């Protein structure tokens, strides 16, 4: 995973609650066997009509929001299906940060595997940011190290778990990290005797 770098970008306002992963990446694009190439399909049914033409009213189709790296949205972003393709699509499209008032668990977890930063803020702060985008469309500076969003002379602090922060900042290979505890896993396996499914024996 690439380490997460500081981001300087204006925001894309997606003024909706409960955006589910079926919308972020519809199922017809889940048949690929790679992790890349999903950006063109991001929010496909919202972005394009049945003939594949861009829908003018959808926010990502407004030219001024092109090339922006921060998505601003509301409650329960990423609910529904566990498809990590949703994170890959956002990342592939160029999004590096999603700011929301809450996230669904599996989506939130998946973000950290790719290097996408999910920032959870209070509803008031989210409202403030939506107002700001509407009024002066300011640039936001996001520092993960400092856990701050600097925008329009205001600094908003955000919380993030220490371990997740370290993983993102250093771009740590999680599997490699886990395998460094191989002795612990072996000890557990010896003690617990978790049996193969076709040869079950009681856990002592």
């Amino acid at each position, binding site marked *: 995973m690439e380490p997460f770098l500081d981001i300087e970008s204006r925001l894309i306002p997606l003024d909706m609650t409960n955006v589910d992963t079926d*919308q972020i990446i519809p199922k017809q694009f889940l048949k690929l066997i790679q992790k890349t190439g999903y950006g063109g399909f991001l929010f496909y049914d919202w972005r394009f009509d049945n003939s594949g033409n861009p829908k003018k009213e959808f926010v990502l189709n407004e030219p001024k929001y092109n090339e922006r790296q921060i998505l601003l949205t509301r409650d*329960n972003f990423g609910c529904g299906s566990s498809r*990590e393709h949703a994170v890959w699509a956002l990342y592939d499209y160029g999004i590096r940060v999603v700011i929301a008032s809450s996230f669904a*668990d599996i989506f939130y977890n998946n973000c950290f595997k*790719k290097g996408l930063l999910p920032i959870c803020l209070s509803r008031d702060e989210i409202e403030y940011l939506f107002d700001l985008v509407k009024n002066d469309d300011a640039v936001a500076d996001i520092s993960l190290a400092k856990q701050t969003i600097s925008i329009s002379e205001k600094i908003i602090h955000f919380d993030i778990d*220490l*371990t997740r922060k370290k993983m993102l900042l250093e771009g740590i290979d999680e*599997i490699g990290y886990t395998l460094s505890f191989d002795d612990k896993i072996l000890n557990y396996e010896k003690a617990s005797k978790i049996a*193969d499914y076709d040869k079950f024996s009681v856990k002592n």
Partner: protein
Amino acid sequence: MQKTLFDKIWDSHLVIDNNHNEYAFDPSGPSLIYIDRHLIHEVTSPQAFASLKQVGRKVRRPNLTIATTDHNVSTESRSLPIVDEVSKTQLETLSRNCKEFGITIYDMTSPDQGIVHVIGPELGFTLPGTTIVCGDSHTSTHGAFGALAFGIGTSEVEHVLATQCLWMYKPKSFLINIEGNLTKKHAITSKDIILNIIRKIGTDGGTGMIMEYRGDMISELSMEQRMTICNMSIEGGARAGLIAPDETTFDYLRGRRYAPNESELDRLIEYWKSNLKSDENVKFDRVETINVDKLAPQISWGTNPSMVVDITDSVPSPEQFAKNDENKRKLAIRALQYMDLKPGTPMTHVHVDRVFIGSCTNSRLEDLTEASLVIRGKKVSPKVRAMVVPGSQKVKLQAEEIGLDKIFKDAGFEWRESGCSMCLGMNPDILLPGERCASTSNRNFEGRQGSGGRTHLVSPVMAAACAIEGHFVDVRDWF
């Protein structure tokens, strides 16, 4: 210390307990937990295997994982060739990966093929007290057996394959007490109970929590009905649902292929009986009580599983739904527009084009049997196309042995091969734009069953009755 059922399973699977971890630089960081059972399918696993291969890593314990093909398989006759080349590649990739890494697979040619969350329990792969994961959010289904079961993303699928463990922040606990009794036994189902719960707590009510369902009523439910409840825990935001195992659970396990043999099982049952329940006075982080005495059949009207009313209700106005929450009001306006519904229309006046009985929520033998009670000797409305997609090849076979296929076919239903089918429409089973469907599945999101398609979530008996009448009906009048 008093513990919840979840605490007990969690504690017995800690490889590295963050609270007692000399390596921890982060005292509130995740713990490393061991995964006993892993299910994989064609859609969320190819990238996991590809990454393993890229780095040259092995699958740590191939015999703790089983694979099946379910998401994008055709439900047409298995003798027909797969037309969709991209789907075919995905299916072949899974077979190749399983062969290469020594994982057992139940593919389209297997008599044990089916939806992961149907075949896991069916094979006795799902056991009480275990940890179970799958790259699919409806893994919560297996919680019906008192297993800690939850959906994961593809990177975590790779992590489990390589390490048989996962880093996890300990979720909070949420107790849902279910009180009262169902008044009309066949007409009101566990689907109505869970839809009603989600209607009350919202789609994020259980976020960051494990929901445990408890109450006399739960004890009376069959395993199939319990699975329906746990299955949809994720629609209430909870990664996992849990029901403490009891005699019903143990009886279900006996004789299944991968369940322990008699003597072993008896020994285990004693252990499970004393260990797999929440302690009497344990405190949960959140508690809600639902009374089902007056529960009516539930039906969704909108585009998320909390947008639900009684069948006797009318389509709500955005204001009725939102209760002063402006964001919810906007969501409801959008949903009504997408669903092409007007506030005030009685739900029983809503006509459908399609009926789908299937999915990991409601495609088991009992679901099909109950639905058949409604349609026996009747005909599907000429305006409706109705299909039954059994959850597995075994469900299909068992149903055929007791003549359910004939009842459905005589009524005018299509009787198809097993798979996820129109629950998510990755295969050709999709709604056309504007089509309206009574569906026994779990998600009514925009476009879920096909771009522009409109989904109403209901129980199998409600869907069956709707197929006959061509519009929604109160199925209580049919029993």
